[in-house]
């Protein structure tokens, strides 16, 4: 017996979009005046993949998005390919991309339905079909009751959903999102992020998402491109980026990372008063480890480091301690939420040797 698909799944089936791969070939960007916004970049985005460009402001992530969109052209030699088609010289209006902006960029002189219908109108889709597709898209985005509203009568979250509907109704080859959640408050950001995630999975569209928020990147990205100063620092799945950061910048930018100093001699790493087996050249080393990979030592015997608690922050599910060891930088340590440790208490810490990272 066939399984009846859910109502919403059937709904999105009708919108299922072709998954077009994107290739960037040596795409750099130098602005007039000589400022280098982007070092030449090679990247293949698989069809249907959601890729997130993550980095601090000025890292080149938005420039990359605008090169894919066709709003900026790459420096000579760079090429942008959608599938097998070279779109480098096509302006944005002929690339068939959907764009969603941080500032929503909805047309203030049009109603919600008119905004969503605009792309179809420009494409000369007939009135009847236009009306049908707009209605379907508004229903998909739970905006049906707002069809006749003016834009200034909507909340920020509703506006961004209208912007998504407007971008998707024309069945674009790729959906480009430039910090779409940044202007929203925290609670709305979470719910809209879930909605975007659901949409991207169900529609199967190739999506490029730009953000400076690592939480968003981890939640949405099939892969994340971490960027810094116009360069790609690392490309990988959220897990790879989190657990195997390619360098110190990525390690510090994603989540919280501790730096632990130690010395290696004859295959033994000494940290504080503890020692553990370590393969690597002799000499002093700096190793990285996550707050969840340092534990309170159960006894004096298995402790590596001693320190005093400088701060204890209760986060509900866990308590985050900042411990100042006798020497070296303070360490952030996650412990059980029901811990009754407080500022000034002395603690012994144990580092999980399997979770220590040596990063250039």
């Amino acid at each position, binding site marked *: 017996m066939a399984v009846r698909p859910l109502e919403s799944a059937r709904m999105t089936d009708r919108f299922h979009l072709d998954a077009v791969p994107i290739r960037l070939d040596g795409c750099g960007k130098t602005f007039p005046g000589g400022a280098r916004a982007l070092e030449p970049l090679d990247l293949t985005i698989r069809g249907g993949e959601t890729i997130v460009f993550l980095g601090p402001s000025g890292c080149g992530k938005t420039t990359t998005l605008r090169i894919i969109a066709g709003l900026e052209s790459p420096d000579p030699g760079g090429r942008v390919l959608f599938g097998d088609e070279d779109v480098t010289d096509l302006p944005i209006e002929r690339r068939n991309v959907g764009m969603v902006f941080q500032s929503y960029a909805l047309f203030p002189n049009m109603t919600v339905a008119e905004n969503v219908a605009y792309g179809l109108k*420009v494409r000369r889709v007939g009135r009847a079909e236009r009306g049908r597709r707009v209605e379907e898209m508004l229903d998909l985005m739970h905006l049906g009751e707002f069809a006749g509203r003016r834009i200034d009568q909507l909340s920020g979250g509703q506006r961004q959903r209208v912007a998504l509907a407007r971008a998707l109704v024309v069945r674009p080859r790729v959906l480009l999102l430039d910090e779409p959640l940044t202007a929203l408050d925290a609670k709305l950001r979470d719910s809209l992020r879930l909605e975007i995630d659901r949409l991207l999975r169900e529609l199967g569209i190739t999506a490029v998402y730009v953000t400076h928020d690592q939480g968003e990147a981890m939640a949405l990205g099939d892969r994340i491109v971490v960027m810094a100063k116009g360069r790609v620092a690392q490309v990988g799945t959220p897990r790879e980026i989190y657990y195997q950061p390619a360098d110190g910048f990525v390690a510090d930018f994603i989540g919280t990372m501790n730096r632990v100093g130690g010395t290696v001699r004859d295959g033994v790493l000494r940290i504080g008063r503890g020692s553990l087996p370590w393969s690597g050249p002799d000499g002093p080393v700096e190793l990285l480890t996550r707050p969840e990979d340092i534990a309170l030592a159960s006894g004096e015997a298995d402790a590596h480091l001693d320190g005093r608690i400088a701060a204890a922050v209760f986060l509900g599910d866990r308590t985050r301690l900042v411990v100042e060891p006798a020497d070296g930088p303070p360490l952030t340590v996650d412990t059980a939420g029901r811990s009754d440790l407080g500022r000034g208490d002395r603690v012994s810490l144990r580092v999980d040797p399997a979770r220590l990272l040596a990063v250039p």
Partner: protein
Amino acid sequence: MSACVQHGPGDLPRSAASPRAGRRRMGEPLRLAALLAPAAILFAAFFLLPLVRLIAIGAGGPQGWAAYLTTLADPGHLDSLASTLALSAGVTAVTLAVSTVAGLFLVRHRFPGHALLVALLTFPLAFPGVVIGFMVIMLAGRQGLIGTVTQALTGGKLVFAYSMAGLFLGYVYFSIPRVILTVMAAAEKLDPRLEEAARSLGASPWRVVADVILPALKPALISAGALCFATSMGAFGTAFTLATRINVLPMTIYTEFTLQANIAAAAALSVLLGLITWAALAVARSVAGTSVAAAG
């Protein structure tokens, strides 16, 4: 936030008490009247009384109030009114078109000398109509630049300074600076993301202008256009400098008043000119007002 909360209760009694104390004093309405008096006197003396007097003079001839109808029905006057309206509408349309293109260009493109050019554009703002007329004569008059060039090229001299065409040129020249400044101020505030969104949806550059840029500039264009129209309706200096025979309403009023001493007709025409211009401005203001509200 907490500072605000602590501040609130301390402030409230004071601010609530002061109006009550003010209302208790009996002299308050008197004081207000005394403060308003100078403005009221000026308004009455220099606006209300002359206007009432003007309306009364229009009806002061042998025909009484019927003079308004007679003045309106006079073919010469009607002709003058029609040509003034046509001239002002034309000047407004051309000025808006030129200024929108130039203003958008100046906002979108930076080039060496940009600031100087914008500063120079505001230059004609200070010129009286006489100077504008003089410049039109230097350009298109009998000894003008265009005449000299066309004579050298074709043998015939093109002279149009002393006609409606010359007046048109002068008014456009005179109107462009203020409209450009208004357009530039509005264009600076346009959100470039709106245009990018329209383009991403497949809109050609012309469609972006029609669907995004012009709707956003509409309130500014309407108010700038209304001022341009009103100025062209009432301008006198340029017309007077170019030729006394140009058939525009301000010139007709001047002729009726000084040359034919037909004071009642001059007054009636003045009231008419004022009414039409005022109506045009009011309509523009209400249309601009609703579109501003719609744009939110």
